[in-house]
């Protein structure tokens, strides 16, 4: 019984760290290319795909990271 707890917890921690690193990289990339991104998105038209795509990718990486984050801290839903 006791062995299963740390292995389960370490799985969560590993997942959290992986997605956390991915999230940080994505944000770093966005700020490095800040001006370029803004210049393109400000033109509108079909460049609307840029913010939409960024939003989906970021939400996937960061959403998974935050879910793991609270789980690792032991903050879980009732039942």
């Amino acid at each position: 019984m006791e062995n299963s707890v740390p292995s389960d917890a370490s799985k969560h921690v590993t997942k959290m760290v992986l997605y956390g690193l991915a999230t940080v990289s994505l944000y770093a990339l966005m700020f490095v290319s800040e001006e370029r991104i803004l210049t393109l998105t400000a033109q509108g038209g079909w460049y609307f795909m840029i913010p939409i795509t960024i939003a989906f990718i970021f939400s996937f990486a960061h959403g998974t990271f935050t879910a793991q984050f609270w789980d690792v801290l032991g903050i879980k839903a009732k039942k």
Partner: protein
Amino acid sequence: MDNLSNFIHLDLITILYLFTVGFIGGLVSGFIGSGGAFVLTPAMMSLGVPGIVAVASNICHKFPKALVGAMKRAKYGQVDVKLGIVLGVSAEAGVLYGAHVQEGIKKTFGDAGSNLYVSVAFVIVLAIVGGYVLRDAWSIYKAGTSDHEEKVGKLARRVQAINIPGTMVYFPSLKTKISILFTIPIGFATGMLAATIAVGGFIGVPAMHYVMGAPSLMASATELVIAFVMGVGGTIKYAWSGLVDVRLAMIILAGSLFGIQLGAIGTTYVKPYLIKVVMGVIMMLVLLSRGIVIPVYLSDLGMITHMDPGLAKLLKNVSFSVMIIALATGAFIVLSALIKGMRAHRTEKETAAAIGVFTGHDVAAAGTQLDPIGRLERILLVTDGSEYSTGAVQEAINLAKRCGGRLRALSVIAADSEYETLGAQLLKKEQDNALAHLRELQATAVAAGVECEIQLRQGAEIYQEIVSEADDQHMDVIVMGRRGRSGLLRTMMGSTTARVIGHTRCSVFVVPRAAHMEGRNTLLAVDGSRYSDAAAAATANIARQCNTPVTVVSVSSEEASPMRQKEVEGNVARIVRLLSQTGIAARSRLMKGRPDLAIVEAARAEGSDLIVMGSHGRTGLDRMLIGSVSERVIGHTNCAVLVVKA
């Protein structure tokens, strides 16, 4: 670079500020479902972001956040995907129209016009919807139904009853069919508002709840689906015009995804009414914040006389401060509800695991009460010498006799320092009378074979004196009447009793004047909490001494899920089994409805002369908002009530 004029420069402070605002917005959003964007749009505007860019960036952060939140809450079974998609599609049309209106205003009147339009929309919508939500939360508190899932309101019942052939669609959250002719305008209005102020949920959630009849938890969760559907559409529309600042959107998203997960977890620990309280309180504060700044925009547009720049700056600062207060208030209520809920849940689980230790056999075999839970050995009798204390005096002596307990009789004189100085003679007379009464009572108790000490105290707050005495003397139970006369002022003993119950750590036995325990039946009211288990232990003590049959009653909500119902039944059966094992004649009675009324009714039907129940011992805001079932039972019943503290 001219086309970048809509985008502000970001420094570390701005980023941290947006992240924090995003977190709190997400927290509120995960909790009440409506975007939390009402704090995000103005927060961005306060940094100098033009209104339309703030709205556009807000919508862009909103749809991925809504997606994550909806998926999280779908796991808890709170999302009606069908209703969300149906409303979301018509909301999409509303978004497109709303965005079109917004752009038109910006072209015609510039940024000041756009800002004014957004602020006025905020004030009007928040005043109407926020007022309604707060009024509803207040009426729930007054009706004392906060422990239940809400009932379908009058308007929703009427809407559900209208049958328009060919347009009826079944929705799981409503558990009935409803015409899509109602969902289309609601969706459209939600979308239009979302495109205007990025908080369509302020129409969507109340409409789903009050107009369609969806439970508020499901309405707030389903709103996340609508938010996703229309968020994608809204983002495309604004991004097509090049108005989305994706940096702002993603920074807010970074904070809000932390928040939305936490807010969604929070909903699993709270009662539905709290969602309305949080929503209403925040709406009113944001309304105030936006209202304050309207004259500034009017001045910019030349619609009123030109405002002094110093005054305009002051108004903007005040507006900003109120916004911070709104943020902090929302976060505080949600976080404290979450922490409290998690703590209570953990304690309940621990107690449930430990309750197997309790057995009534121990009580009988030892001839005394070894179990500290529900022990009734040290009895504090509170008396004021009035007729309202007669029942309490009689039952306290009987209880001490039956349980082999020791009695301590207490009288409290209400007197503050001013009274002590000005009315020394009056006070002396009052003390003499009280002491004489206590000595008389002591003689009666001794004659009945019960050891009795007496104590006279005085203080400004009667309940505090009673609670302190019980604490100092390590009492197990306080016995008191329901109304009484205390010193100079005749007060409602009801309020003193309620305060004692709220603040003391020991059990409280409330005996109305005419109550007399003959051992006919004891009604044990349980709700599955650790407090109920303590009440069961106390009932076992009394029932064995008095050889009284026990009826274990549990009251569940009309709309309780089958799982919850099964849980209730299992809990009642467990307590009946525990009592039966100690040789007590125990049976169960399962009821539905309002707990206080159902318990009083059950006591009447069973011919009970004693009701035993656990108390959560709420105080402060919590008690003010949801009241106490035990207090209401005490107020309504004519028989004695033992409120057991765990």
